[in-house]
């Protein structure tokens, strides 16, 4: 009796979850399907879920009509370099916070955490002026600088936790062997904190890949555009009707890498969330 109840409860649970999951996923599927539609078939009643006729014209147009490949590469370059720099710099800070005692340690750490609390967009005006003064307006270098800066606080916070979970005895053993701090950081701490570094890498890369507001504010010319800005421009191109098929084709191209990274590194996503927060 009890077993049957449990089985029924379980089935109900799965049904409820399935319905909710379908609601969550329908917008994505509809976007995918629209990206294969000709403009005249985008708004039909009833809506087409399977495009008929299906066409890859939107994808061709997205890739050919403008510098889409360039935007893609810009996004890639900015995200890769910013992620690499951010991880290097923040892991060094995290190592200092995890392994040394020094004056102002906790104050400095708290000031850094303040960076998590300041609404990023509050800084957009002064950062725009700073970029202007540093001659970094409308350049990929400027984007990289601000993306690294924006991710420092969170990454340092995350990595400090990982470094602290490495037994101090290992450090001391290496020290006895005459290894200096840099060597201990580079050869011991970094390799042992790989899961933490993986987590930070994924989060930082995706944040840079998707960043919109800073790119919107700091860049201007076509050769410095990143993908999110390009998608926005696609949507704004036609004066009358938005070419939804084109917008979504470009969106799909931008989203596919994200979803692949997410699916492959799912484990690290969960780890990143849980180590960033809350254990009971």
């Amino acid at each position, binding site marked *: 009796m009890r077993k049957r109840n449990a089985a029924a409860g379980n089935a109900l649970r799965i049904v409820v979850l399935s319905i909710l999951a379908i609601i969550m996923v329908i917008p994505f599927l509809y976007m995918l399907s629209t990206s294969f539609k000709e403009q005249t078939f985008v708004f039909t009643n009833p809506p087409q879920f399977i495009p008929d006729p299906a066409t890859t014209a939107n994808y061709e147009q997205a890739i050919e009509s403008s510098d889409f490949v360039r935007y893609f590469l810009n996004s890639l370059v900015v995200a890769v370099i910013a992620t690499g720099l951010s991880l290097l710099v923040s892991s060094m800070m995290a190592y200092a916070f995890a392994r040394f005692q020094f004056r102002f340690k906790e104050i400095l750490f708290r000031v850094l955490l303040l960076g998590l609390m300041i609404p990023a967009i509050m800084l957009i005006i002064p950062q725009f002026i700073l970029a202007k003064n540093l001659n970094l307006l409308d350049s990929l270098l400027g984007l990289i600088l601000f993306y690294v800066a924006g991710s420092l606080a969170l990454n340092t*916070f995350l990595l400090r936790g990982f470094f602290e979970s490495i037994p101090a005895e290992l450090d001391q053993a290496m020290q006895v062997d005459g290894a200096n701090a840099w060597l201990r950081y580079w050869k011991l701490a970094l390799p042992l904190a790989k899961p933490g570094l993986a987590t930070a890498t994924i989060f930082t890369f995706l944040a840079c890949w998707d960043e919109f507001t800073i790119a919107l504010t700091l860049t201007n010319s076509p050769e410095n555009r990143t993908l999110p800005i390009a*998608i926005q421009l696609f949507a704004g191109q036609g004066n009358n009707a938005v070419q939804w098929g084109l917008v979504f084709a470009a969106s799909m191209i931008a989203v596919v890498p994200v979803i692949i990274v997410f699916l492959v590194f799912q484990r690290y996503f*969960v780890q990143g969330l849980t180590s960033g927060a809350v254990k009971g």
Partner: protein
Amino acid sequence: MTVLRSGERVSAGVAEVLSATPAPPSRSRRMSRRRAATAATPYLFLAPGLVLFAVTVLYPTLQAFQMSFFDWKIVGSATSEFLGLDNYARAFTDDHFWLALSNSGIYMVLTVAPQIVIGLGLALLIQKKSPTQPLFRVLFYLPVVTSWVVVSFLFKFLFSDGGLINFALGDLLHVTNGDTAWLADRWTGLIAICALGVWKGIGWSMMIFLAALQGVPQALIEAANMDGANRWQRFKVVTVPAIWPAILFVTVMLVIGGFNVFISVYLMTGGGPAGRTDVLLTYMYEQAFNNLDFGYGSAIAVILTIMVFMLSVVQMKVFRDRNGGGAQ
């Protein structure tokens, strides 16, 4: 200044909640003997990051405050005029500021509660280890990792006149005529924007709650079972107190996030029609980068920041007090 101080308190509070930083390891004697020789080492490790942080985050923070007291001129030669509190006075007598503020508030109220309730509900439903669990986890989390730009256009499309929402509500469910011009009106526009906020966010709160639920002591649940507690009582007496820090964390983060809503409004309605769906940040952005009124834009940004800090402090207090009462 007071603002900065309350900010520090907030960050300290959040740090506690996050509680991912264990106490520093005890120092061995050998290390402390060598410390004198290597006193500079930690600062060398910190220097690149801290310098960058100071230049690109701390300094701009202070400058945002400073600019808010000026009629700030961005052009090199023009001198900025000191206005004192004029920009703030202007904000408080500016009807459109109040409209934008109330829209931000509405967004917050309409998105935070559903994300917590639905997120927690989902977490409870998929908590049990089963072959389907990873699949559901991925599906619900997918909107979280997808770019704001992409999903903003996606929802603009879904809520457009001939879009899927009108079809579903009109032709399928017959609750409307199916011809609602969602994005052409303040309230329906805000509903569409909020729908996106909830849809994109529940996966995140679900994940945090899932992690927290793993920490609920099994022994307590069994003890409650022995005492004949039903499912609801078990949830109330055991689960909620155990995951209280997570609930606090999620709430504070969502409130902060709610006030920071920008991209979805900017891209879905552009604040329109006639600025009726403007939130604080779209209004700030327009003042700064369209009207080139950087001083006024900064004042709006500062007001927002102060409100977010104060709200976080209040929440932390309220939640902690209630926690103290509830846990005993």
